[in-house]
């Protein structure tokens, strides 16, 4: 079996030696992991199966057949409230851009998965804790609108600490905006699939994460509405270790399935295979200019 494109790209990615430590310590089992091995294993600890948080572009690479056509990347954050706490919001944005190599907390675009053309959104916790401000709301809405126009299935990977406080109520209103876009998209009969990754909480959890046809939770991800600390402080009691884990949610009936990272792509393809008639894929591909090149 030939090495898949995404894996080849991961392996080829040239990381300057001085930039990245060669070894990474697993926070769960303490094992020292060779960074390249870890990345080749989709950032899952080779010893204890701990799922490290994954960079949005690594995630995309791990999923798509070939190219990923990004859209909405021109939508970049402003500072509508001229916010400052310990640091000005604009400074926080700038340092997150440097640190994460991302322009915002979600990456959106088009790709094919095992030949199925899809609209794909991937959130990243590395940028402002994956919080949803106006840009995340706008990009996700834009993605759903463009997917609806093209009658493509939409897959969104969530990872979010909730609404972004630095944008105040404008951030909260993105829950309403994205919900309306999801509702329109789904009312037309388009399949919508979400993959909840670590962590999925607050305003994202209570909007487009839990409104989909099929909800897949990544193994061991922390998923909930209120943050664990908030609950502990409110109730003044310690919560069980498995509280708000993907496995806990499965037991409580809140998600359709819990899937380890290595199986996510195959699972998505299987779900797409049920949701979309393969015979109709070829004409759909032609209808999407982004895929005409392939």
């Amino acid at each position, binding site marked *: 079996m030939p090495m898949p494109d995404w894996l080849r790209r991961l392996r080829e990615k040239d990381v300057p030696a001085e930039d990245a430590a060669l070894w990474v310590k697993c926070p769960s089992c303490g094992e020292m992991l060779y960074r390249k091995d870890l990345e080749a294993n989709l950032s899952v600890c080779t010893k204890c199966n701990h799922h490290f948080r994954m960079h949005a572009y690594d995630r995309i690479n791990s999923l798509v057949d070939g190219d990923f056509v990004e859209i909405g990347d021109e*939508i970049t954050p*402003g500072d*509508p*409230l*001229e916010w*400052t*706490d*310990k640091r000005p919001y604009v400074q926080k944005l700038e340092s997150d851009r440097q640190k994460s190599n991302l322009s915002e907390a979600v990456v959106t675009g088009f790709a094919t998965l095992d030949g199925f053309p899809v609209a794909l959104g991937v959130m990243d916790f590395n940028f402002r804790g994956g919080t949803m*401000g*106006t*840009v995340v*709301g*706008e990009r996700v*809405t834009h993605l759903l609108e463009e997917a609806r126009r093209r009658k493509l299935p939409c897959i969104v990977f969530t990872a979010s600490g909730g*609404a*972004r*406080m*630095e*944008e*105040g*109520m*404008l*951030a*909260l*209103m*993105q*829950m*309403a*905006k994205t*919900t*309306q876009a*999801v*509702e*329109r998209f789904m*009312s037309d009969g388009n399949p919508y699939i979400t993959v909840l990754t670590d962590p999925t*909480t*607050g*305003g994202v*959890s*209570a*909007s*487009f*994460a*839990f*409104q989909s046809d099929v909800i897949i939770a990544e193994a061991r991800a922390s*998923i*909930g*509405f*209120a943050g664990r600390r*908030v*609950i502990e402080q*409110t*109730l003044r009691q310690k*919560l069980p270790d498995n*509280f*708000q884990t993907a496995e806990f*949610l499965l037991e*409580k*009936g*809140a998600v359709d399935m819990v899937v380890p990272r290595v199986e996510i792509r195959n699972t998505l393809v299987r779900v797409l295979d049920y949701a979309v008639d393969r015979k109709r894929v070829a004409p759909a591909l032609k209808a999407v200019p982004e895929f005409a090149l392939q």
Partner: protein
Amino acid sequence: MNLIVERERGPLQELETRIATLRERGSGSSGDVAVLEEKYRELLGDLFGNLTPWERVHMARHPKRPISDDYLAGFDQLDELHGDRHFRDDRALVGGFGKLRGRRVVYLAQRKGRDTKENIRRNFGMVSPEGYRKARRLMDLASRFGLPIVTLVDTSGADPGIASEEHAQSEAIAMCLVALSKATVPVVATIIGEGGSGGALAIALADSVIMAENAVYSVASPEGCAAILWGDAARAPEAAERLKLTSNDLLGFGIVDRVVVEPLGGAHRDPAGFVDVVLGAIDQELTALADTAPAALRESRYAKFRRIGAWERAHMTRMATALT
């Protein structure tokens, strides 16, 4: 301690007592009463004429502030419908059929209590998944019967308990939002006290959002925001300032469509009068929306929220200007 309650003590309370005593004495002292009342109004103006956002937070949480019960009492009639049809009847959110100024509506109200006992029964207005599922059911029912939806928002936030997480609070709120997005009838939401984040928005994705002048509507509580962003909950007054949670701020953003001015010193100084004005405002909004066709209604609701934080430089600049 509530800042407003604290400020109401002392000279203001003294003056109130003196006016009451004079009034009891009867007609002979009407001139004196007028003088004192003038003084009283002046003092009210000094104390409450220019409230900071943090003071408004306390106004919104004032123990005597009218709660949804007071507003519901002003409806012509109510027929409450109970339960989520799955698990239980959440007392923090009530709803059902009602008539408001002769108009048939479906009402949904988050409900704080007037005293501790009531508050415990109503979970301090913090709604659980069962409450949101009841709301969702009634939203769909409203569309089926062609009845407009009237909601009253007053919650510090959705319930953050263990059971609420076990019963998928996120999903319950998310699907409430979907139900309001789908509604084919006019939706009018009124923020009467605290609009606490997603738990409030769940019943406020509306064609028209009315807000009481001293109500607050916020992405996070100022205390929570300060604890997270400043690492110090004592910075809450500053967080309140920055969060832009007042009715005037939100009107500027287009997040709120109409503000109902409160009596000087807050809605609780004339609860009956204020409730009447708010119900009148709701009625006017419903009248304005009554003739819109369902498709047009959904289209304009979509456009309304689509605009908020939309990516246009001009728009962002406008929003920034509105704040200064």
